[in-house]
């Protein structure tokens, strides 16, 4: 029975609402002359029930896409704020399966694209096929795997696409131009531009090289470019928009705001932070 249901779900998802959701989202935002606002939240911090409230609150407050972090014990690309959020999430028993099940329960309510942010090991532990199947069933639109470089990405990208999931690849300030071109060709949905040579975390100023990087990426590809790592204030969003970026990912600043919120007020705080960012 589940197989039949799964087939029909996939059939309908494939042929109607589910294909290229990220691409369509960026097209809409572009038509409206805006930059896409892409908040990041750590699933399970402080608990999954709160996370689901936060996701809905962000959607209502103007988020265009949401990056949803699956907590991992050894997050190499993350600075202290997101590391601690992952530790808190793990300490209350958050697992990839529980995150996907929470997401699944939001189907019908959450209409903006959800991008799962996961490290390689939890993904491999479930298995690429199985992870993509479950992620797709839960309604996710894409995947970001920060420790899976281009060389290792082909296989996952194919599997993900077969489930209508975009595997989004990252470009860093240290990436040479030819390689940048290859990454931009192979990424799906958009190119994730890491704004600084470093890990995630709040920063006061944007990297000086950023404008050049966005320009270079735009020259080699027509795919949308979203900038992340260090974007923490409304003025940063202003700046990256003026540099030509299509999306701005705000992680640590929001995660910190949520972690500082009073008990029961996480979703409210997230929503007001999101609105502040958008008052630009």
């Amino acid at each position, binding site marked *: 029975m589940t197989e039949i249901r799964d087939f029909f779900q996939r059939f309908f998802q494939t042929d109607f609402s589910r294909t290229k959701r990220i691409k369509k989202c960026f097209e809409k935002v572009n038509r409206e002359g805006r930059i896409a606002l892409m908040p990041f939240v750590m699933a399970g911090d402080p608990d999954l029930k709160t996370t689901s409230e936060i996701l809905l609150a962000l959607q209502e407050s103007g988020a265009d896409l949401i990056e949803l972090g699956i907590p991992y014990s050894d997050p190499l690309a993350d600075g202290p704020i997101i590391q601690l959020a992952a530790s808190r999430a793990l300490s209350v028993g958050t697992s*990839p399966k529980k995150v996907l099940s929470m997401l699944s329960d939001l189907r019908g309510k959450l209409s903006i694209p959800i991008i799962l942010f996961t490290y390689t090991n939890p993904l491999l*532990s479930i298995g690429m096929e199985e992870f993509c199947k479950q992620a797709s069933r839960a309604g996710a639109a894409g995947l970001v795997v920060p420790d899976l470089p281009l060389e290792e990405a082909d296989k996952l990208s194919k599997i993900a696409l077969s489930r209508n999931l975009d595997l989004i690849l990252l470009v860093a300030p240290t990436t040479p131009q030819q390689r940048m071109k290859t990454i931009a060709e192979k990424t799906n949905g958009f190119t994730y531009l890491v704004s600084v040579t470093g890990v995630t975390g709040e920063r006061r100023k944007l990297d000086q090289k950023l404008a050049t990087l966005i320009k270079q990426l735009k020259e080699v590809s027509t795919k949308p470019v979203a900038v992340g790592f260090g974007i923490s204030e409304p003025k940063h969003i202003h700046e990256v928009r003026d540099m030509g970026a299509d999306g701005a990912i705000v992680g640590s600043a929001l995660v910190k705001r949520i972690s500082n919120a009073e008990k029961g007020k996480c979703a409210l705080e997230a929503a007001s932070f999101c609105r502040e960012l958008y008052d630009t």
Partner: protein
Amino acid sequence: MTSTFSSKPNNDNLARKVRPNQSGRFGRFGGQYVPETLIPALEELEKAAQDAWQDSSFKNELSHLLKTYVGRATPLYEAERLTKHYLREGEGPRIWLKREDLNHTGAHKINNALGQALLAIRMGKKRIIAETGAGQHGVATATVCARFGLECVIYMGKEDMRRQALNVFRMKLLGASVHPVTSGTATLKDATSEAIRDWVTNVESTHYILGSVAGPHPYPMLVRDFHSIIGEETRRQCNNAFGRTPDLLMACVGGGSNAMGLFHEFIGDKSVKMIGIEAAGEGIQTNKHAATMTQGRTGVLHGAMSLLLQDQDGQVQEAHSISAGLDYPGVGPEHSYLKEIGRVEYVAVSDKEALKALQLVSQLEGIIPALETAHAFAWLEKICPKLKKGQEIVINCSGRGDKDVNTVAEQLKSEI
């Protein structure tokens, strides 16, 4: 304790060109699972190493310093009283020790630290970072940085800093700054993650001297190659001592650098058996162990695919061993490969067995081995009864035990 092999060792899967292959893999293990920011630096490092090994001035400088500064070649020592101890009715193997404990700073670690420091200088990088567990690799790195006037930052788990206060002071005395790591379990695993994060941030000015045959390609190969002098000397010394290759090589395995250093030279000699000994901690049936090779399943940690201690959700588990140097939930990818093709056998011994071996070797040979090294000695109990007279065993005596005397004293008191 036998492992299940998925294939058999043969000329193809033992060839050097597949260890690693062109994409940095040993079979399915290895690779480069790191943030994009580091990929160009890893390419640069691979190329710098390739160039260096073809440059006679680099090789000459390295071997000159290995001789005059590190104190190589280290002796191959015949452990007569240990040999006698394990004789059963006149039967039993002869036991030799490759004395890496006699190197400057007291362990094999400096072979690699020195080589990588020279590479960093070639690449024009003046800031060095490293991770350390017990502090041996940290001390070796701080030492070579002092020798070359390089800035040195060592990442060390806060818990390990407490356990290894003496080594922390040694590093500071050598001019290094030691950064306490409080994230996760505050041990070697987290120190390594923090060192990688530093590298991601400062990659343009900094070289990361990784201390084991772990991490993303080219590190497993690079670190192995700097340690392979251990096996090369051993071959020559065995030839001089008894006119042939040894029958069995034994070494402890945490990340696996001293073992790879000894094994590498002999991988193609099928008559040479090899055993890697890892830490069973309080027992592999408890969850307090570091027996990655016997209990782990395939995963990705610190940039490489290898066997890994992890829970059902792919979260990395805390390892446990009395020896801080073996207290690591991962293992170098080449070891996972050598296990899979059946070339090397891997076994585990407990904290208690290691402690017992440490005392035995101290009292019979006047050599206090490091707790890590003591794990290799402990396997003699199991293997010697199976071996005959005339068989030659070489144990890599990878480090000396001065750093461990506090831990040992604590343990022995609690047992009295």
